[in-house]
């Protein structure tokens, strides 16, 4: 590049206050290869940009350096301006003379000198830039949605309604997720199933949605626009297509005493069962650990009863391969398993609450089933131990949340709200009953949320104590709850019939393994990481993989749904074009000099480099070489550092560019 234009910005006073912009513009004009050097109040403004375009034309510039703010702020802006004037956008570099200079230095002479050097560096770099064309990747217009809870359902339906095929994978026998088990939802107290089940049916019937229930994602290959997904369909022992869901089979199954997963152990199911009446698909599954036929070749009643001949005891796991262009992850959450999770060193606490030891100490999801009209007790609040109606119920919030010592540092966000809801639902069912709540803070931000909590306290008379419970013991059928009311400054003991623990929200089991398969990031707790907390909240670091719902962080239904639609929207943007374009600033291999040690193949975080062979037309092997897959490369440049012969290089940050920048610092 020999006709470089330099455009130095005042940024109003922001730069000009400490950097002598005119002096800078004059000085850098002297750099060899610089054709023109001008300055202006606001380069990013319309007049500023049109000034750039005019100069490009009048001076026949072939590369630009804009000395203004951080490239993170305006590089895209100026690249666009350049391309409008017919210059390849990748022939534009910025010198950050604001964030890295004028804003952090007060000595005008030094700041001005530094600005000149920063610009010289950028000039030396841009001199060696290459014109680059965005990389086009063909897109398979089919999406994979992992998880059939409310978020997954929302995302699947949005994408399908936009006219794109969706493959929905759900681990459980039915979609619906946690929400299907909830009684009523805050702050409106409308019945959860009444809202959700129609959506579930829509999914089941949608011509563009292929549902794989009782299935898991086994492996993920390929890259954005072109993923190859392997799905394992777990053996169901029931042919979903033949089965009519008539129910004969489970009605005759003699094994009645299997704890129901759907009821969180509060109720029972048969060995062959549908998790709940409104299940989608409304098809049973056989629990191979319970069924006597599968265990010791006994029984076999269900097969005899089945007119559709849908029962198949020889059923095996099936492997299905699908190719998709995008993935939406909506794997949701699980509750902090108060007894089981103690194995995990970080989660050491809460033995003192006697969960698992005292039958009548239950967690919040179990309580949801207890108050649910479709629950094991038909919506009558009976305590597990003796089926008596509890007259006093203690609700403890923040069990595991906001507790660095024994639990998890974060706030599970929804517990305050559902605990308030629980006290109300309880009161509505047991009018003479009294609800007591031990809380740390009440976090009720959200539309009509605080009003809702106030209602629980003021109308439904829940007693709220700001304080922790230190111990729960059992004395002749009563649970003695010892705690503190820090506002009253007294210690406090409640004799309760039942205790409900608002346990923390944690990522679903296997979240980290899935993240590794997908190559997306996750935090110390296993929640998936978005690629930018503000601006890219549903994207991940793996192009084409989006996240929504509680797998990202604790959140309530409206948020999960909103995020799901956002993810679906992102997928639709991708599917809006036959090809998607990717940043061309990626790695390249000089295949002539590559020694084929494949260190880069080893190191690449994205498995974007493959072993390749160069052969003559006749097929004789000339040499082996590493080769970059432009669809996968994210441009980190780690390959460049590990390449001993520097046959690997990175567009946009090439060896020549970087060395010349260093060499300009003499």
């Amino acid at each position, binding site marked *: 590049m020999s006709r470089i234009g330099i455009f130095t910005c005042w940024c109003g006073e922001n730069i000009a206050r400490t950097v002598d912009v005119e002096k800078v513009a004059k000085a850098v004009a*002297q*750099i060899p290869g610089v054709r023109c050097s001008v300055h202006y109040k606001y380069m990013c403004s319309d007049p500023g940009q049109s000034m750039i375009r005019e100069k490009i034309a009048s001076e026949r510039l072939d590369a630009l350096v804009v000395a203004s703010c951080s490239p993170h702020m305006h590089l895209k802006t100026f690249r666009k301006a350049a391309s409008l004037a017919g210059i390849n956008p990748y022939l534009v570099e910025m010198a950050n003379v604001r964030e890295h200079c004028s804003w952090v230095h007060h000595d005008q002479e030094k700041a001005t000198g530094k600005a000149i050097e920063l610009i010289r560096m950028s000039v030396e770099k841009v001199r060696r830039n290459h014109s680059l064309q965005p990389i086009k990747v063909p897109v398979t217009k089919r999406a994979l949605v992992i998880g059939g809870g409310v978020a997954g359902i929302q995302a699947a339906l949005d994408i399908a309604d936009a006219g794109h095929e969706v493959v929905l994978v759900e681990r459980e026998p039915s979609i619906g997720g946690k929400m299907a088990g909830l009684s009523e939802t805050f702050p409106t107290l409308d019945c959860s199933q009444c809202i959700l089940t129609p959506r579930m049916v829509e999914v089941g019937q949608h011509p563009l949605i292929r549902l794989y229930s009782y299935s898991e994602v086994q492996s993920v290959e390929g890259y954005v626009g072109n993923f190859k997904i392997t799905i394992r369909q777990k053996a169901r022992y029931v042919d979903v297509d033949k089965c009519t869901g008539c129910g004969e089979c489970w009605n005759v199954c003699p094994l009645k005493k299997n704890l129901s997963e759907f009821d969180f152990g509060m109720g029972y199911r048969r060995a062959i069962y549908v998790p709940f009446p409104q299940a989608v698909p409304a098809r049973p599954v056989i629990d191979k650990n319970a069924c006597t036929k599968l265990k010791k070749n006994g029984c076999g009643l269900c097969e005899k009863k089945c007119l559709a001949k849908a029962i198949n005891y020889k059923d095996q796991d099936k492997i299905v391969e699908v190719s998709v262009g995008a993935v939406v992850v909506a794997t949701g959450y699980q509750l902090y398993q108060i007894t089981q999770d103690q194995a995990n060193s970080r989660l050491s606490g809460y033995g003192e609450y006697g969960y698992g030891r005292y039958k009548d100490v239950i967690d919040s999801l179990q309580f949801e089933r207890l108050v649910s009209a479709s629950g094991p007790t038909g919506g009558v609040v009976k305590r597990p131990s003796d089926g008596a109606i509890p007259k006093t119920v203690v609700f403890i919030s923040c069990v595991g949340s906001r507790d660095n010592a024994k639990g998890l540092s974060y706030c599970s966000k929804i517990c305050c709200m559902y605990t308030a809801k629980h006290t109300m639902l309880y009161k509505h069912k047991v009018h003479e009953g009294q609800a007591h709540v031990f809380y740390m803070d009440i976090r009720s931000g959200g539309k009509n949320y605080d009003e809702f909590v106030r209602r629980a306290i003021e109308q439904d008379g829940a007693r709220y104590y700001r304080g922790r419970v230190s111990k729960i013991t059992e004395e002749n059928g009563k649970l003695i709850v010892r705690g503190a009311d820090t506002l009253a400054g007294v210690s406090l003991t409640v004799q309760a019939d039942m205790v409900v623990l608002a346990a923390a929200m944690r990522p679903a089991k296997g979240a980290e393994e899935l993240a590794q398969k997908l190559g997306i990031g996750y935090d110390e707790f296993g929640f998936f990481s978005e690629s930018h907390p503000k601006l890219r909240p549903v994207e991940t670091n793996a192009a084409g993989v989006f996240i929504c719902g509680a797998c990202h962080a604790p959140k309530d239904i409206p948020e999960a749904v909103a995020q799901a639609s956002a993810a679906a929207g992102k997928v639709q943007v991708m599917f809006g074009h036959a090809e998607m374009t990717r940043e061309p600033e990626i790695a390249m291999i000089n295949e002539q000099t590559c020694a084929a040690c494949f260190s880069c193949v080893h190191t690449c975080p994205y498995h974007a480099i493959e072993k390749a062979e160069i052969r003559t037309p006749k097929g004789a092997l000339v040499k082996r070489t590493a080769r970059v897959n432009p669809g996968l490369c994210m441009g980190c440049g780690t390959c460049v550092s590990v390449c001993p012969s520097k046959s690997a290089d990175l567009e946009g940050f090439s060896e020549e560019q970087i060395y010349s920048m260093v*060499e*300009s610092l003499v």
Partner: protein
Amino acid sequence: MSEVISASALRELMRDWLRQGKQVFGPRQVKPGLVLYTRLTDPEQLLVSGFIHPSNSPKEFVFPRHEVIYSYRFEGKDLQLLDAPDSFPEQIVLAVRPCDAAALPILDKLFNWDFQDEFYNRRRQATTVVTLACLSHDDSCFCTSVGLGPADPRGSDAMLLPAQDDEFEVRPFTEKGEASFSGVTRTSSKQAGTPSGPAKKFDAGQVRTYLSENFEGPIWHDETLHCLGCGACAYTCPTCHCFDIVDEGNAAGGIRAKNWDSCQFPIFSLHASGHNPRSTQPQRQRQRLTHKFQIYPEKFGDILCTGCGNCTRNCPVNLGVLNVLEAMKNGQPL
């Protein structure tokens, strides 16, 4: 009758030279088992016995391995050229082996036959070469096979021949040599014996014929396949003189320099197209041998080899000019 100088007087003379600001070079024990021609800053550093041949050659005192030929600096948009220094202090290279000294007249021709290399010539003019005749030799030595010998005067301004009682007979051959030792020697009745060199190992004429007839002969592949392609032979050879021109610089300016190069490096003959006319190591070895014993003699008259044996001594895999020449003689591979 002869002129002699005692070892102590010689060191005294060195001291004078150093005092006069002359640069003095000579063999020196750099570390156990390693003798190199180096710059000497103290007469005690001079080594005059107990070694056959230093691992390097004195050519670099007139033909440095790295020599800046000019530098440049950016002044704004224009470029300022700066000449490299081309005047050099007077220097005396002491106790040089006759084989190494004999290489200098050979190099003189190379650096002056078409273009006159001022850097070389000025250094050469500033240099006085005082050789030290060889009393012993090793298997690698073959000066006698290329028409030289342990006390051959070629390239010497003066020669020291070890005599009895820690004395050296001084034989000046040029005015420079005369001047260097005038007034510091004493006349002695003793005469240093003429040392005997290694037995003749091959006939240079036959070698030349062989080369002209065996360009495609099997000997190259058979004898030189184990050459690793390093430059240890060329860089310690007193006559090898290939160089490369490199530019090294940055945004402020830079230099253009002349660096040693070796025909044994694969990239020595690599074309920009990627084609390499000498693509295998045997071909590069053939080039080296042919250049030394056929091409150079045909062009300049001299064999481009003085039999110092450094190529054999310094070869990582015991390959040297001599092994190949001997293989030619008895016509069959080792």
